[in-house]
């Protein structure tokens, strides 16, 4: 008699392994083999990713309490909280956040639109690819900081400049991910579209955009973060407000408590906007059957 593997499946097949089967089969049970190894992983707990940040906060707290972490460099969590409360009470935090969020949103909107359009042009036509692809590489290999003087010249030092710089930072990951994703659409589907006589526009709408969506969404995750991070750069320039300005100012004055509040706010912003994109991902990519959703 061969090695046997047995599983009795409860209503939810994702029940943890090792649950006792309701039915017993004496003869077969005498030599039960381990259940076939599952290489795919079960659906993740939607809040599971909070574990990492929670651990981080724990380490921070314990480190601060035991003095392992030097409070002058990294103020303790409770100091951070009380600083944050002070800032909130003064109204500075909210005001800065609101202004920054508005800048980021505008830059994001323009950057995403431009990124997708240019990716389509460069991805769907040979000549578009020739013109734009190299240019984008040139652009993205030049440090933004070094571009600031030129940007100031062309776009001034007002809001336009700030939104433009954010949009440029957003553009790159959107372009690159969308472009790569759409060039990676399987030939099978392109052939199908050809035989169905799809117009170019229908092809873009029905095949290219949905097919490139996973790549675009990954680009969006980078882009959202890029928008927030660009604030730190642009809010050095002719700004008297904004979360980036707050951090910069605190840095010049070496106010580590304010800096840490800024960083925590950044972390929260990053986590929540990333969560938003991932939720969008889960909603729009229901058709995908992949290793782990």
């Amino acid at each position, binding site marked *: 008699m061969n090695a046997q593997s047995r599983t009795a499946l409860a209503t939810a097949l994702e029940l943890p392994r090792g649950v006792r089967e309701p039915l017993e089969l004496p003869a077969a049970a005498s030599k039960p083999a381990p259940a076939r190894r599952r290489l795919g992983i079960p659906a993740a707990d939607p809040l599971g990713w909070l574990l990492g940040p929670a651990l981080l906060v724990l380490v921070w707290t314990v480190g601060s309490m035991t*003095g392992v972490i*030097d409070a*002058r*460099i990294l103020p303790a969590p409770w100091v951070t909280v009380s600083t944050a409360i002070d800032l909130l009470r003064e109204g500075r935090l909210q005001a800065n956040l609101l202004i920054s969020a508005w800048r980021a949103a505008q830059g994001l909107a323009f950057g995403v639109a431009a990124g997708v359009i240019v990716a389509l042009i460069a991805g769907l036509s040979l000549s578009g690819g020739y013109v734009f692809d190299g240019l984008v590489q040139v652009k993205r290999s030049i440090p933004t900081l070094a571009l*600031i*003087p*030129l940007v*100031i*010249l062309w776009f*001034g*030092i007002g809001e336009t400049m700030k939104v433009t710089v954010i949009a440029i930072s957003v553009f790159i990951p959107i372009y690159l991910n969308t472009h790569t994703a759409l060039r990676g659409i399987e030939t099978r589907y392109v052939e199908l579209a050809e035989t169905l006589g799809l117009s170019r526009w229908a092809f873009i709408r029905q095949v290219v955009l949905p097919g490139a969506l996973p790549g675009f969404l990954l680009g969006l995750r980078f882009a959202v973060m890029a928008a927030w991070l660009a604030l730190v750069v642009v809010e*050095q*320039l*002719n*700004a*008297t407000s904004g979360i980036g*300005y707050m951090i*910069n*100012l605190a*840095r*010049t*004055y*070496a*106010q*580590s408590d304010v800096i840490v509040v800024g960083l925590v706010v950044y972390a929260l912003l990053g986590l929540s906007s990333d969560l938003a994109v991932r939720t969008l991902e889960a909603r729009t990519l229901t058709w995908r059957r992949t290793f782990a959703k």
Partner: protein
Amino acid sequence: ATHEPAAKAAALEAGQLALDAPLPTRVPPGVTLAIGDPTTEQVLKHTGWIKDLPFQVKWAEITGGPAVTEAFHAGALDVGTVANIPPIHAIWVGMPVKMIAVRFRQDPADYPSFQLAISPKARINSLKDLRGKRIAYSPGQVQGEIVQRVLQSQGLTAKDVTLIELPSPTADVYVNALAGGQIDVAPIGSGAALKRYLDRFGTDGAKVLKSGVRDDFVTMYVREETLKDPGKAAALAAYVKVWGRAQAWINSHPDEWAQVYYVGDQGLSPEDARYVVQTNGKAELPRDWTEAIARQQGSVDLMAEATGRKPFDAHRLFDRRFETLSADAFAEAEGGPKLASR
């Protein structure tokens, strides 16, 4: 060797040197200082004096207040060389520091560190025309203090002009903002950048005005923690003397200095280099810090008002045990003892 903040602090308790105890004169073997002072480093290397230092040096290319403060925090740096503002901020963020050397310029009115560059598009002919203009302002940097003092000198307040917050870690931001007419006035360090600005945009009407504000305060400062280490304290005493000699050497070898540092190390053209050295003027090391303390007190009060911090007595920023060390070495090298204080 200086990378052990907490542990070292504890270990020091035992053999610590009191901050008012006389400085030890002998440097024990094995002492290392991490020094962020690129110009002196160049002089010492060029002259070969570097071999005579009675301690080990780890040179660091760290300049500017925030970077020095960060490196101090990390215990990665022992000596910082900055303008007068960063030590004040250090006190405010709870990091006690002391200045161990002070450098002024001879004829500071003729050789300002910073001047006010005027945009070609701004109709400004003298400081009296500043009212209502857009002025680049970088809080926390010495450029910010200069702007405030200029306004003060003209009887203006921040409300009478438009202060545009624009930090200038590098000169090109201000130059382009001025050329593009985004701002009307910006303090730019005298030297290559300013020359370049005038060369390029002078024909369009770009100008430069002297600020009339003294901005020649350069200091060497250290953490109190460093001073409590007897070995390091002794090394510091030795270093400020060498530093004084180096300042004198720069004073007396302008052409050589231009070639060695600005051409050789910084990559300027010989012409630019000579210009920079010329506009830098001559260093002067005061043998008496009373004036320096008074000026520093003014800065403390001004910054306290600007940032809402508590003013403090500027005396606590100075370690007067070092007061004469560098100045005497300087004077000796300059050719005989001459009293430099006024």
